[in-house]
């Protein structure tokens, strides 16, 4: 908008106001201004609140030493209630006492302060610009492009070390397409690590399972995978094993022999943002993610039938080992866990 248009717009405003400013209303005295007994009562109230707060703070210290950590009061931690209520009510009383003091006893005459213009006076602005100009021209910043440009260039390059220094924040992306599953690894229950036989699973049942390596011990009796490694492995390799009636299942061509008598194994990690999924509706064969309600049809190759997930739930091909326990035929043929930019370029 141009300057002239602005001025026209201002001129359009009707200057005169229908009601003139009647000025500040008259000050009305409070009871505490007029009656000495009201003033003394307010004084007692304020002092009483401050005094009681002091008593509560002392009680806080007594409770700290007297109440046992394990004591229970009405189902709550007695120590927490005792400390919290003495501290809380004490603080509240100080605050309310101060407010009462201000409202009843301090002067309640409204004061008027004039505002100053936010902008500096024009001569100050001119002087600032002049000073800036003098400084810049004395530096020769404009006159000596060689100095200016080399300085700007080096300052720009200073950004590089700052970025390069961050390189070791973490390794480059790797291993996103693989999990710890491999050919012949047993599928074991996630609580006890016990291997699973087809006979252990009834139609309609869902078992939370893990790859056996998560429970394997090395020669010293320590777990092969522990701490972060175990969590990283679990975050991709957790599975669920379900059994449906074989006639209910409509496998795709490639997954026709991935199950055993209606027993199928799917990734437990949602393809949306990676929540573990385990809400199983056995009648409909639907698996619902409790985080964002993506719903997968396990009878139909883990297809997404509702919710924000895009990719079907990856399936783990199953077989039986010589002892009749469930084992993986290979790693997941499809990539598990949430999508990432390179997922379509994967080795699979």
């Amino acid at each position, binding site marked *: 908008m141009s300057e002239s248009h602005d001025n026209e717009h201002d001129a359009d405003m009707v200057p005169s106001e*229908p009601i003139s400013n009647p000025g500040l209303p008259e000050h009305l005295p409070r009871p505490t201004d007029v009656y000495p007994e009201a003033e003394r009562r307010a004084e007692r109230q304020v002092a009483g609140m401050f005094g009681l707060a002091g008593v509560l703070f002392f009680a806080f210290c007594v409770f700290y030493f007297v109440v046992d950590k394990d004591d229970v009061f009405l189902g709550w931690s007695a120590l927490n209630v005792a400390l919290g209520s003495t501290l809380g009510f004490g603080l509240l009383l100080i605050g*309310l006492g*101060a*407010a009462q003091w201000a409202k009843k006893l301090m002067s309640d005459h*409204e004061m008027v302060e004039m505002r100053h213009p936010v902008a500096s006076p024009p001569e100050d602005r001119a002087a600032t610009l002049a000073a800036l100009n003098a400084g810049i021209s004395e530096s020769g910043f404009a006159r000596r492009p060689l100095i200016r440009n080399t300085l700007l260039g080096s300052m720009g390059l200073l950004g590089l070390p700052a970025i390069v220094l961050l390189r070791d*924040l973490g390794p480059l*992306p790797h291993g996103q397409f693989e999990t710890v599953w491999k050919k012949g690894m047993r599928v074991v229950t*996630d609580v006890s690590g016990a291997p699973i036989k087809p006979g252990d699973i009834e139609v309609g049942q869902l078992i939370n399972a893990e790859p056996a390596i998560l429970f394997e011990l090395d020669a010293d009796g320590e777990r092969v995978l522990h*701490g972060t490694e175990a969590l*990283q492995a679990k975050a991709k390799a957790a599975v669920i094993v379900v059994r449906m009636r074989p006639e209910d299942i409509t496998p795709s061509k490639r997954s026709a022999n991935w199950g055993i008598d209606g027993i199928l194994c799917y990734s437990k990690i949602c393809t949306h943002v990676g929540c573990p999924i385990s809400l199983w509706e056995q009648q409909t064969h639907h698996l619902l993610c409790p985080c964002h309600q993506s719903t997968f049809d396990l009878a139909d190759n883990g297809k997404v039938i509702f919710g924000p997930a895009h990719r079907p739930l990856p399936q783990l091909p199953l077989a039986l080992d010589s002892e009749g326990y469930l084992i993986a035929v290979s790693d997941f043929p499809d990539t598990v866990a949430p999508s990432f930019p390179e997922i379509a370029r994967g080795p699979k």
Partner: protein
Amino acid sequence: MSQHTPVEETGFGKKASGPVEWLDNRLGLASMAKKNIRKVFPDHWSFLLGEIALYSFIVLLLTGTFLTLWFQPSMAEVNYQGAYAPLRGVEMSQAFASTLDISFEVRGGLLIRQIHHWAAALFIAAMIAHMLRVFFTGAYRKPREINWLIGIGLMTLGLIEGFAGYSLPDDLLSGTGLRFVDGMIRSIPIVGSYVEFFLFGGEFPGDIIIPRLYMAHILLIPALLLGLIGAHMLLLVYHKHTQWPGPGRTEENVVGFPVLPVYAAKAGGFFFVVFGFTALMGAFFQINPIWSYGPYNPSEVTAGSQPDWYMGFVEGAIRIMPNWESTIFGWTFSWNIAIPGLGLMGLLFTALGAWPFVEKWITGDDRDHHLLQRPRNAPVRTAFGVAGMTCYAMFWIAGGNDIIATQFHLSINTITWFCRFAVFIAPVIAFIITKRICLGLQHKDKESLLHGYETGIIERSPDGGYVERHAPLPSNRQYALTTHDRLPVLEDPRTEDINGIPNPSSRKEKLLARARQFYFGDVVDKPTVNEVEEAHHHLGDHTGHEITAGGDEFQGVSEAGIPKTH
């Protein structure tokens, strides 16, 4: 005003002059302090909202410092052998174990933890309430636009700070939240995997995200928050607080009470009220019982997992987004996560930041404003604000779709579909209704100004008709109803100048004219001088003669509805 004894003669004056001189010789603060010790602040309940945010931040600093004395930000695995029996022997991170220790072994530790978490929830709630107050009263207008932007920065940082904080205990719920963030980071176009590996120090969950979040939570973001709060307060002092218009209150002055003693007592006391309130919350209301969630395990989750309330709108957006994902030139783009997760927050904060400048472009108003506007007197802004709140509420409801489904026995798919439409339709409905309510209130203001208020006195005319007598509002009220700006005259855009030469910027002007029509079009202007004079003349006809009603002393009601008797 009461008279004060000259300072040299008071006990305080005699005692303080020495220390004041010593300090001023070294700091020279007297010339600044003389203006500010008795600086005037206006009074209104809505000005307390920002104070709540400030004080809950101080509570967070105090309680947070206490928590750092025991908390161990490490993801190293330990075998828990502490006081909480049900988890003894369980493998967990040190972060989780030390949070259990704070809750069960440090006396008062649970209380301080709970105060800290409640204060965080209050901090964000108070910031949002404060921002809405500033928005709906137009307090962000020139010269306060920069302070509005600082406020948005504070809110953005507050959300990140809150999220970082509740991720630290490394419990099952917060770990699920981090998994969600991991999915969101992966959805960043092209570089998602790199950002994930750099942030988590490898594949999710890695062993370094908790120490890094800890650094951000206790150092980086609090330092930024403190700096921005300092700037926010300095600008507040420099600009002087806005005030509601009213008798004696103008654009040129501030009417209120001095910092010393009134606000020192009121605001100082209010800090204790906020602290006391959060302490009582910590005493009586459990929050984030991490021991019942257990340590983080990426293969477990509980149904009904919810983030802290202020992340609910992002959670809702993620839930209701259609499952779009596409692969272009080999790169996979997860629109289903990137748009609601990254785009929505960006859109919200961009829209908030841009609003003062968009409004200024529409109104062309370049004056300084220190008087607040009643929301009804800016109907389009108010309607926009309510539409925005409605949209936010719909996303927030979507974030609790599972809870709603189980509590009210509804189909979760129906709720999701409802929310998918509601986030677009409900704001439009809210806009229309709010604007109509504003216009209705403006009409009512004009009506009570021109026709007075109803006195409750019914008069019978000689020909048998009944009329209720009206009386003019007291002049203070009349003035308060007419303090807002008169509407500008809307002009048609100039397509050509007086010589018939086409206006080169006519398209821009047409757009502006349309925006101005939208913004000011239906707004009810306040009555003119003539209208008011005429109306009061008319009202005067009635009030001329007194009522003589036998023994009944009733003389009508005051404008507040209180009966008047002689």
